[in-house]
């Protein structure tokens, strides 16, 4: 399943609808909406593009579960849309404050900064899902330590392919060079990357590119092996989506313990009915 890890939110619903349809037309089956502020988060969650009531998902959980998020909004959007907030803190304390307030809500949390200190704190924090590095300026701020921390805590490195399409000649070469250096220090085999469009496509929808084109850019220009390029576009974003579903459905109980399956009362009678519990809680061990 191809998932766009970042499409911008547009307050004009017609424009946003066009963007979502374009996203579907170029080959994405789901998209994560990049929200820049609390106001945008409110606008998105109260709009027609996000289910207004709690979605009841089908078990056992798999990536196909994302289809349950599509049904309530199928009139307005051909693909399911998930929220993601991008925090741009000024210092480490502001980041911690933001994280404590945003971790209560059901959305993915991304941190974007050019300061190494902030990125280090973000990579260390378990509440952060993504480190957003859309431009070469952000990418060059990543140190080996930050990359290693991000790998340990399974924080995804979110890259954007849009600057390569906007820029030309030596500027594009420079952008490719910076990303090439990042790939040589944080290999796509062992590190978690996600790919999407940046917020620059806000008013320029023709800059959006499909997953096949992205794969071709990674493979032909940046020399990323085809298997890993597919993993970056498909599998990694699926993991992100699963993380969102588990958070939204409140399936975490404590570290290492989460609900992985639910059996309805009508399906199975007997032991489950006697115990008057519908939930099967399976201990998976610590990880």
């Amino acid at each position: 399943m191809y998932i766009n890890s970042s499409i911008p939110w547009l307050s004009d619903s017609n424009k946003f609808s066009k963007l979502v349809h374009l996203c579907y037309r170029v080959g994405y089956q789901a998209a994560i909406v990049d929200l820049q502020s609390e106001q945008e988060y409110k606008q998105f969650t109260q709009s027609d593009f996000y289910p207004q009531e709690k979605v009841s998902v089908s078990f056992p959980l798999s990536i196909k579960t994302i289809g349950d998020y599509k049904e309530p909004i199928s009139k307005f959007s051909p693909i399911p849309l998930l929220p993601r907030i991008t925090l741009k803190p000024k210092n480490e304390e502001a980041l911690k404050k933001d994280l404590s307030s945003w971790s209560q809500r059901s959305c993915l949390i991304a941190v974007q900064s050019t300061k190494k200190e902030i990125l280090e704190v973000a990579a260390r924090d378990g509440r952060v899902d993504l480190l957003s590095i859309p431009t070469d300026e952000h990418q060059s701020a990543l140190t080996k330590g930050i990359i290693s921390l991000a790998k340990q805590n399974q924080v995804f490195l979110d890259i954007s392919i849009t600057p390569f399409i906007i820029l030309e000649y030596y500027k594009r070469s420079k952008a490719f060079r910076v990303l090439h250096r990042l790939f040589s220090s944080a290999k796509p085999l062992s590190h978690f990357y996600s790919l999407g469009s940046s917020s620059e496509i806000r008013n320029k929808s023709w800059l959006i590119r499909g997953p096949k084109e992205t794969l071709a850019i990674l493979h032909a220009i940046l020399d990323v092996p085809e298997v890993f390029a597919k993993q970056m576009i498909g599998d990694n974003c699926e993991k992100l989506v699963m993380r969102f579903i588990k958070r939204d459905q409140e399936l975490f109980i404590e570290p290492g313990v989460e609900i992985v399956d639910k059996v309805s009362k009508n399906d199975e009678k007997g032991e489950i009915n006697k115990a008057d519990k519908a939930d099967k809680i399976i201990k998976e061990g610590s990880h």
Partner: protein
Amino acid sequence: MKFIRQRYILFEIISTEEISISEESIKRAIWKHFMQIFGEHLAFRLGLWIIRWDPINNIGILRCENVTKYSLIATLAMIKKIDGHNIIMHTRKTSGTVKSTVKLWEKEFNTPAPKREKQNF
């Protein structure tokens, strides 16, 4: 002599406006961007041909060598403007024969593929 394997790329041009683009403009745009990104070193191995082109629906089939398939798709992704119009050159499918690509065309777009014309490239 070693047999060179070919790949056929089914693509469409997506635009926010209603436009009709000529085959010549597409060739020019592809060559310009390919030379910019990959240079003459890879350009001689490209073996580019526009096999079919439907100017009404803006759908076409490109032929290239097997080894330069991804380079060509990457080039198509980099093209953002043709004849002053903002466009997306979207790759739909790739295939090994013209016959199967034409079948895919008819299945994907529900329109018949135009017959091939003689061309000087």
